[in-house]
């Protein structure tokens, strides 16, 4: 039984690797980090596969790991950056301004709050149901709905301003 679950998980990973990479990339914004995220997520998943409740949960369970790994990497980067050179910090406002003005919805999504961006990505890029997203994010369904709605509103506004 457990062995079967393991095999199923492996198949799931192999078959959906491109999708996983795209999600990771949407957070990381570059190839190296995206590949790192995917690799870390696979390691974690295979090490902890016994925690999957049942076969049907594989999909949401793996997304959860992937999103968490993506967040982790982003946080690490933020940390590294804030410990880095002061000069770099001075440049930030200019950089961000230009970035925001140019960005389309794809870039704007990454400016949203972390859980909001995950909800939008899973909903519109991966086309998951709200119920699945609630499971992945460990939130209740109504919270997901509220956050999604709020996120979309902000997004629409910002894209309009940018245009």
């Amino acid at each position, binding site marked *: 039984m457990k*062995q079967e679950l393991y*095999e199923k998980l*492996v*198949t799931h*990973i*192999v*078959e*959906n*690797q*491109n999708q996983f*990479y*795209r999600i990771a*990339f*949407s957070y990381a914004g570059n*190839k190296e980090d995206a*590949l790192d995220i*995917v*690799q870390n997520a*696979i*390691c974690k998943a*295979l*090490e902890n596969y016994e925690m999957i409740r049942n076969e049907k949960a594989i999909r949401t369970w793996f997304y959860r790991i992937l999103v968490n790994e993506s967040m982790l990497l982003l946080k690490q980067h933020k940390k590294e950056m804030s410990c880095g050179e002061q000069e770099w910090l001075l440049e930030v406002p200019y950089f961000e301004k230009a970035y925001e003005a140019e960005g*389309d*919805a*794809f870039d704007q*999504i990454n400016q949203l709050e972390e859980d909001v961006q995950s909800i*939008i*990505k899973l909903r*519109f*890029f991966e086309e998951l149901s709200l119920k699945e997203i609630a499971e992945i994010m460990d939130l209740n369904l109504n919270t997901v709905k509220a956050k999604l709605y709020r996120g*979309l509103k902000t*997004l*629409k506004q910002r*894209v309009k301003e940018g245009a």
Partner: protein
Amino acid sequence: MKILKEAKKRYDEIAIPEELSQIVESTIRRQEEKQEVYQSNAVNAESEKDTVNEAGKENRINETEKGKVIHMKRQGRVLKRTLAAAAGIFAVFTLGLNVNTAFAKTMYEIPIIGTLAQVLTIYSYEDETEDLKISVEIPSIETISGEVGDMDAVNKEIYEYCEQYAEEAVERAKEYREAFLATGGTEEEWEKHNIQIRVWYEIKSQTENYLSFIVQGRENWNSAGNSTRYYNIDIKTGGQITLEELLGENYVQIANESILHQIEERKENGEVFWTPEEGGFAGISEQTQFYINEMGNPVIVFDKYEIAPGADGQIEFEIKA
């Protein structure tokens, strides 16, 4: 929401790096090895403990049962690992067609071929204006490693061909629109035309020695604007493979005889071909277009109208060597 549609499009166009499938595969393999080491250590530790304790039968049965379970587990993986190991050797080569296909599927269904190069989309775009829809997918030959020819020239040629086709097709659509409106058509009527332009490619076959694929351009309003190019690339040289290389010195005779024979057969089945006097098949030449099929045989292709009425579309003849 339109902005999300655009964002999703950008998301879907995130290019998948070549290394991904290798990284995924090797991560899984490493993890499996780690677990097996862990499991066999656990078994060893337990059996040692058993001996020390002078364990009774019950314990022994337990142990052998555990051993069995793990053994079975192993068997399950042996096959996989053999495949994985084989894949390891060829990992650099077997990125497969277009990489997108799930690694597992390509792995287990297609025999492993030491491909040194592959055809990938390097550039694609879609655009929709009031007047037309255009979708372009430009392929490029990416060499993976080893002794392969220089693909720059052919890649450049493909790229230019695609871009030029797209550009000219847009031009033709514009002319069509002007002509339509100038001859009394209204804007509303024009809108119903639903003009579409598409450039894409299709891989016919690939082995360690060659890549055979076609690149096509289509306009949905004008079949005269259709265009197809055949690429049979010798991986070792980067040059085009000729019919002579495939069929030998007497390739003209071999191909002609085979085609005439096949025409006769098809006529018996009720297909119509023009006679040579009507401008039908009059023998192949150096310019004759062909691709190489999965069997490694050249397939000669005649355009619509070339040797038979247009209703038959393109006509293909496989020449069995």
